[in-house]
């Protein structure tokens, strides 16, 4: 991480608990760069997170007010913070299991209310912290601790979901696409309404090693191969999009 970003960190919280090859460190970096480039007052930001690896990105690493909440509930907590003090910038950072499974109800209702929150989903398609169980964004047929013969279920497209619910700004990038990711987080942080960024982040430890992608190298190659631009994807048929990661901005 660039030295000029150190001021946003708590030195006592390092080293991070993230595994080798985890994409969440890159996401942490991207979020701080967005904050820095926007010159946001770090004392007026509240970072809210749930339970899981993604939730540890802000808490305890960020030297701002952080609210590390119950599993699945960060958006509900964030709603209370933002409504009572609208001068605060409230940013939710949590994982796919936290935001889309146990917390799915809060996600869709906050999007519907279009309340001014930035929600960043650290989406590694797996329950990393609890040992690698299937999550609502695990690709179909992927192997996890609870789908040894392959995931029989279709994953959620969280971007289509939040767009349908009325979110003002919705995008998806992977941590491999770092420049557009930072720009998109900046847009989300300056959106006057509900903003959702789905960030696909590799988890070699719990996902990759069960799916023939044991290191970040294979996982990055996979992200590269599967990523397809939103504009390009529009012209394709449903079966041509199977297994693809649509990246870009979903609001039109």
């Amino acid at each position, binding site marked *: 991480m660039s030295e000029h970003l150190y001021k946003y960190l708590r030195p006592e919280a390092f080293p991070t608990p993230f595994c080798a090859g985890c994409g969440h460190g890159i996401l942490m970096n991207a979020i701080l760069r967005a904050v820095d480039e926007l010159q946001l007052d770090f004392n007026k930001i509240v970072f809210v997170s749930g339970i899981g690896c993604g939730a540890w990105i802000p808490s305890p690493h960020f030297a*701002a*007010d952080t609210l*590390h909440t*119950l599993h699945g*509930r960060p958006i*509900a*907590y*964030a709603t209370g913070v933002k*409504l*009572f003090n609208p001068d605060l910038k409230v940013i939710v950072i949590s994982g796919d299991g936290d935001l889309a499974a146990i917390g799915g109800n809060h996600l869709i209702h906050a999007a519907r209310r279009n309340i001014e929150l930035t929600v960043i989903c650290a989406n590694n398609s797996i329950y990393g912290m609890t040992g690698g169980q299937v999550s609502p964004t695990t690709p179909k047929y992927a192997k996890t601790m609870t789908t040894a013969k392959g995931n029989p279920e279709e994953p959620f497209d969280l971007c289509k979901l939040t767009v349908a619910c009325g979110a003002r700004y919705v995008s998806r990038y992977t941590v491999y696409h770092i420049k557009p990711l930072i720009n998109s987080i900046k847009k989300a942080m300056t959106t006057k309404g509900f903003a959702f960024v789905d960030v696909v982040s590799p988890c070699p430890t719990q996902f990759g090693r069960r799916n023939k992608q044991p290191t970040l190298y294979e996982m990055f190659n996979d992200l590269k191969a599967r990523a397809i631009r939103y504009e390009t994807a529009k012209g394709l048929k449903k079966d041509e999009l199977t297994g693809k990661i649509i990246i870009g901005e979903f609001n039109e």
Partner: protein
Amino acid sequence: MPKLINKSLLPPKKYFMQGNIACAEGALAAGCRYYAGYPITPSSETMEHLSNRLPEVNGVFIQMEDEIGSICSMIGASWAGAKAMTATSGPGFSLMLEGLGYAVMTETPCVIINVQRTGPATGQATRPGQGDIMQARWGAHGDYRIIGISPWSVQEMYDLTIESFNLAEVYRVPVILLADEVVGHLKESFIIKPEIEIFNRDSSMSDKPFGTVQDDGVPPMPIFGQGAKLLVTGSTHNEFGIRKVADPVVQDMLVKRLCAKIDNHKDKICKTESYLVDDADYLFISFGISARSSYAVIKQLRNEGIKAGLLRLKTIWPFADEIIKSAAQNCKVVFVPEMNRGQLVLEVQRVLCNKQVISIPKTQGEAIYPSEIYNESKKYIK
């Protein structure tokens, strides 16, 4: 602790009002400026009333998507500096319990109104019960303390809601107002006094918002946006808020202090009222609407020349062990009428292990009536 005298929001006079609405007005008078809730019988009137009243005092009202969201958003608002409240009943309270534990762990002041109905599960939604007494005390996982308060009149739906906010702020603890459907829906007269006593949390800047030198202390609570760089977490944490998920000493110290800050201040927290207790041979110990029926019974017994008295618990948790011991010192039999299969009686029996303690339970989805308490107690009155 900074104590203030606030003007009541409604003009001081005698009112005729429903308990649930008096509760909402008490909250406003106490300084509640954030309410999050979800519709549930028999508590919804509090929410409906606040949906109109909070905007009038620059407060925030939100109807959340469920009770889990309600308690969580209330905790978020409390850290943003609000005096915050939610109101619910049985099924909703069950959903809130994880959040209740979070509020205890993060020492977040907040008030939960539980207008008790029958259960388990959906039970009889419109009918009164008092079956959540133990759940309020023990419902969340882990070991902890909360404060539980029981009003018996519309007057107390107002007064004790204010008291709940004061205790929440002073001890940085969730306070549960354990009302019941009868008191919630009862309409009767009550008086709003011109001034009320208000306690506010100590929100001074501190780098130790989760620890004190004393092992039963209440740390100051800075709020979001002050620059305190707060680390609020439901995981075990040290005095700075840093997660310590495998440190036995930190876990032990934290849980001990969370308990001690309530246990060691019991004499200041616990409030009871005694009626004709001093010379009583027969002591009734009760709470909420059951205590009102008990009150009618002791008057009837006194008319018959039987020395009966009533000790009414306004504070249920922490349990008023010492007060109960001293009130029951010279009596022959203790009766505990309540609208469940016998919950409070378990605590009374624990405290009065050398006395004859008789449970008078009722679970018919209606109030426990004086005649029922009278007939049952007469079996033991010689």
